[in-house]
């Protein structure tokens, strides 16, 4: 029981990070029907941006409050990563729009390789640790066997930030005219342009929003694990993509749900079975779900009324 609660907390934390990355995959797929394979590396870049600013703020500028530093880092990481996302779309994807379907996909793989190698060259190949940020834990209760169920401040921060930013994001997409334009382009690009929507700008915006959310994930990832390396974009990226597919690619709530499910499967499997096979477990569940629900859990079926 104690282990179960503890793993639930850990799983939800990990799942929120996957969910945040998954939104970027799902939104881009929704609007231009392309899997942005470079998204995982954009996430990794954002973790490095966060790391650099965190070091600058704490050791050079001497900001002692971890929460203040974290907030500033988050804002800066989101801004700079958005710029990365925007640039990548502009340089690598937009010129290929209208060419054959695989072209942007191949370009995305190229960007992915470029980003991880670029970071390897400028930051080095070793793991980069952060100075410890928030270490305290709250012991929730103690089990009979003496096993402490604890939630760390880090985990609380990650869940709260994720929840708050997801709410802001949800409001943006559902209630503002910017979000409406985004959804319109996703549903019918041609019609959106007939209604005066600048489709190219809206696609750029989608990449910017996806990158900003990946930056939140990157900052949280750094906070949680305390280390990041140039190759850290790949596995979380693939997991988040899996989450997006599991939840139903194109569906925003599906991406978050899928992220949480993947996070939970991974942690529970590691706790009760063997940690070596946690990825096998996660991907097997994906395969099983897709057999019975080909468009994912919250994905819409392909049929539409004409």
């Amino acid at each position: 029981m104690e282990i179960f609660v503890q793993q639930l907390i850990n799983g939800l934390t990990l799942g929120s990070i996957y969910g945040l990355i998954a939104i970027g995959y799902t939104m881009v797929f929704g609007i231009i029907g392309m899997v942005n394979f470079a998204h995982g590396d954009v996430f990794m870049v954002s973790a490095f941006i966060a790391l650099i600013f965190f070091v600058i703020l704490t050791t050079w500028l001497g900001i002692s409050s971890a929460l203040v530093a974290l907030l500033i880092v988050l804002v800066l990481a989101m801004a700079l990563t958005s710029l990365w996302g925007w640039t990548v779309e502009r340089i690598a994807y937009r010129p290929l729009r209208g060419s054959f379907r695989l072209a942007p996909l191949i370009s995305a793989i190229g960007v992915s390789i470029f980003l991880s190698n670029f970071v390897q060259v400028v930051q080095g190949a070793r793991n980069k640790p952060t100075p410890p940020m928030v270490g305290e834990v709250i012991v929730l209760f103690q089990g009979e066997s003496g096993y402490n169920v604890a939630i760390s401040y880090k985990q609380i921060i990650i869940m709260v930030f994720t929840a708050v930013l997801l709410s802001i994001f949800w409001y943006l997409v559902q209630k503002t005219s910017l979000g409406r334009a985004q959804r319109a382009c996703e549903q019918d690009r041609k019609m959106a342009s007939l209604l005066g929507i600048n489709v190219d700008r809206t696609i750029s915006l989608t990449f910017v929003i996806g990158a900003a959310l990946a930056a939140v994930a990157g900052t949280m990832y750094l906070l949680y694990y305390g280390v990041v390396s140039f190759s850290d974009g790949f596995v979380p990226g693939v997991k988040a993509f899996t989450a997006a597919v599991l939840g139903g690619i194109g569906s925003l709530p599906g991406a978050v749900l899928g992220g949480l499910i993947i996070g939970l499967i991974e942690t529970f499997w590691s706790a009760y079975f063997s940690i070596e096979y946690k990825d096998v477990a996660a991907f097997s569940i994906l395969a099983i779900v897709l057999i019975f629900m080909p468009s994912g859990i919250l994905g819409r079926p392909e049929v539409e009324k004409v």
Partner: protein
Amino acid sequence: MSTAGANIAMQSPIAETARQPLLSVRGVKTYYGNIIALKGVDMDVHEGEIVTLIGANGAGKSTLMMTIFGNPRAREGTITYAGKDITQVPTHEIAQMSIAQSPEGRRIFPRMTVFENLQMGASINNFAHFDEDLERVCTLFPRLKERLQQRGGTLSGGEQQMLAIARALMSRPKLLLLDEPSLGLAPLIVKQIFDIIKELNEKDGMTIFLVEQNAYHALKLAHRGYVMVTGNITMSGTGKELLADPQVRAAYLEGGHH
């Protein structure tokens, strides 16, 4: 001779501006890849008119309508709207020039509510008079009022058609392009929609360009009409003239041609 020439030169600019059409299509050729769809179309729509374009399936009617919006773009020829050459203007900028379109296939946003679809139409002029316009389209189409919070994709075909027209009206366009508003609708609803088009033209002074396969209704309603056959305009005249024309009657009005 020379005095006569000078006279014409002095008179013509005035005469030209007085009769300058709101929308003018000159020698427009449009291709899909290497296949030619419009083979040099000339057409005018004057302010305050209802102009209809009739023709069989695949004649290029919808292509002309989309070419006016630059998607697909005309490879040759010019399109002028309100005195401006819009042949190379991006589609979304054309849409901001007070032209609205209810396109082929209706193209309402299926996963947005009826209300959001109408908001999309109103966003072109930044929601100026949104409440007023919403009120007005709800009066024109009471069915939509009942379904404001329903998703567009769940509407019936006729309701979707109404929504597509209503959405186009939300921006208070000067020129309204309607592509087959009667397609697939019950006769009673067709009559309603044609009544609404007439009302928009007469009461609001809206200029309307109507593409139709339902030639009889369209020609009765329109001031002028054009007939299109495989990418060419083959005939033009007032609605009455075309209705009385034996060729038009044979091809589009009588017998079971379509």
